[in-house]
């Protein structure tokens, strides 16, 4: 059974159709990259998968881990094992990072019928993860994303992913705004998550991230449709030739 199966997905916002028939299947163990020029519908796809209100699905189906995703609330999708890594993580002043991490983990554990995590082992695990992301412990006690640099925000997204161990990670432009060192750390984090039981979707504008996280499949999204799919060499072609050539070829 596919982990994620999107069939003929159409979605609009404020009456304007953005997604015009997307088909995509992601199996556990696979890494997919979705690339496309600005305005092709990449972020809309992420928001629709995340269940953001204001996006109306007019046609099509999405099945996640055997469940009808479109029937699920955002938080139900999260505790069922989907994690959306944001392009622009929002600031939540006054709420400590560590507090959100714990609440998020407990929400997931509750859904699985497990007890709340005990503080001692939680702290131990979080400290290890923080170190692995080349971050400082002080980071845990700052407000969620409050005053974080662009790179820190993205590291924080990956940190959450490592802690929550989702079945499907959907990472929206995780590479944007990262310097080369941060890009390496973030990529290592993503690579650590790769595994038989997990699917990863990287949504990205540039091929740069894919030098560090090698995708199994690459899809080109254009005007709300996937117009071409291939293996990682497609990403190299995009990098070398730009979108124009491939768009012309597809049309």
């Amino acid at each position: 059974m596919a982990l994620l199966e999107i069939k003929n997905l159409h979605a609009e916002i404020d009456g304007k159709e953005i997604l015009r028939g997307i088909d995509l299947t992601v199996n556990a163990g696979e890494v997919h990259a979705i690339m496309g020029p600005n305005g092709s519908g990449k972020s809309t796809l992420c928001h629709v998968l995340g269940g953001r209100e204001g996006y109306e699905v007019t046609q099509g189906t999405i099945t996640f881990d055997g469940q009808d995703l479109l029937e699920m609330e955002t938080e139900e999708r999260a505790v069922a094992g989907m994690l959306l890594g944001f392009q622009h993580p929002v600031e939540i002043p006054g709420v400590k990072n560590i507090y959100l991490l714990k609440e998020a983990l407990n929400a997931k554990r509750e859904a699985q019928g497990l007890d709340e995590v005990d503080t001692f082992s939680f702290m131990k695990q979080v400290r290890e993860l923080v170190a692995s992301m080349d971050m400082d412990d002080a980071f845990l006690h700052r407000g969620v994303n409050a005053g974080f640099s662009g790179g820190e925000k993205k590291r924080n997204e990956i940190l959450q992913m490592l802690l929550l161990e989702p079945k499907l990670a959907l990472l929206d432009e995780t590479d944007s705004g990262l310097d080369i060192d941060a890009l390496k750390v973030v990529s290592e984090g993503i690579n650590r998550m790769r595994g038989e039981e997990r699917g990863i979707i990287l949504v990205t504008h540039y091929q740069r991230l894919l030098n560090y996280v090698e995708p199994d499949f690459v899809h080109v999204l254009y005007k709300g449709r996937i117009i071409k799919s291939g293996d990682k060499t497609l990403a190299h072609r995009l990098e070398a030739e730009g979108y124009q050539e491939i768009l012309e070829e597809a049309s």
Partner: protein
Amino acid sequence: MTETRELEQLVKREYKYGFTTDIEQEIIPPGLDEDVVRMISAKKNEPEFMLEWRLEAFRQWQKMEEPDWAHVHYPKIDYQALSYYAAPKSQEELDADAPESLDEVDPKLLETYEKLGIPLHERAALAGVKGANVAVDAVFDSVSVTTTFKDKLAEAGVIFCSFSEAVENHPELVKKYLGTVVPQGDNYFAALNSAVFSDGSFVFVPKGVKCPMELSTYFRINARNTGQFERTLIVAEEGASVSYLEGCTAPQRDENQLHAAVVELVALDDAQIKYSTVQNWYPGDEEGKGGIYNFVTKRGECRGDRSKITWTQVEAGSAITWKYPSCILKGNDSVGEFYSVAVSNNYQQVDSGTKMIHLGERTRSTIVSKGISAGRSQNAYRGLVHIGKSARDARNFTQCDSLLIGDRCGAHTFPYIEAKNASAQLEHEATTSKVSDDQMFYLRSRGLSEEDAMNMVVSGFCKDVFNELPMEFAVEAQALLAVSLEGSVG
């Protein structure tokens, strides 16, 4: 738009404390004249000086006009239609004294406080249930029901009792301090209170004593068509310190009820008083029907050098809140602090803030005000920072933040600054923000329910204030906010 409506649904609150205790009560007939003032004084077996003091207040009140400058609207109050004294009958029979032990207290009253989660059994409190190491004075309508841990406090030299008992047992202290911070004629509601106040709490911490436990008063309005007028007086002598918390609830009723309290704090040299309020009077229903009019005068005087007074308040209830806990910084190097969270929802109206009156040299004050408005409520911060001529090198820092939930509520800020000494340093920061759809989506995508997400954003917003609450009550305050913002989702 849809999101706005959902956010509003989310903050629809249910009031948990709206029940009425069915108990026989003695309520004097409605109306107010000198005879009523005399009757209240007589019921309390008060000495002559108290009666004179009340009558003087009443005469001043008669000459005063009800003020109307606040950013609140309500129909004119008919002061002759209110009853000015209500007491449970069983309590009435026990003379003016509070009962000696809990066995003498009407079980229905005990039940009421149990339902409200207020520990009146010292043994239970000591056994480590919630509220341990907190002494409680429980005021039911016009009278104090009981005060816990009196003996333990007396060992330390601390007097903690109902106001009536203080008048009877410590008249010299009452005479010395009553009305020295809020004089009888201070304002319309303070004058009314001074004339008819029926009970309240009295705290006296002698020189050098650090009060060994948190003190707390729990006010409960039960009777219908009555006003509640309690009076609290806290005195900390040289080097003494005390932390005090008041909580309040009332039944759910369609008509409005008036609550006009007065709180006076006096801190002598090097003394510290921390006064925290968790105010949860019935706020009225979704259409704005019913609820308490909370018109309160609270003022502390840092009378001695290096003294410190801190007001911390979490205001969630009342149909209308109109109050400004203030500090008069008379002593040199004295410190005044005001930390406030005011939540308003539905048709609630809040006009609250503080006054910091700097008179002594090098006096410092801090104001942190967090207003949260939802529904169709109006939430105003009104603050005065006054630097007197004599207040050399005074400093004030004011931070005033508003959080809006939905798009039909209002937040208003009215800061006033009067600086008569050029050496003063004043800072004022103000922000207004909305709980954004982005924040809600972000938190929900991490698995938090809408309610939990909302609570998280709101408590993050309030953190600076919660940090100032005594430990035991920080949790309670957070829970109160959660309840206030609890509602029917989806």
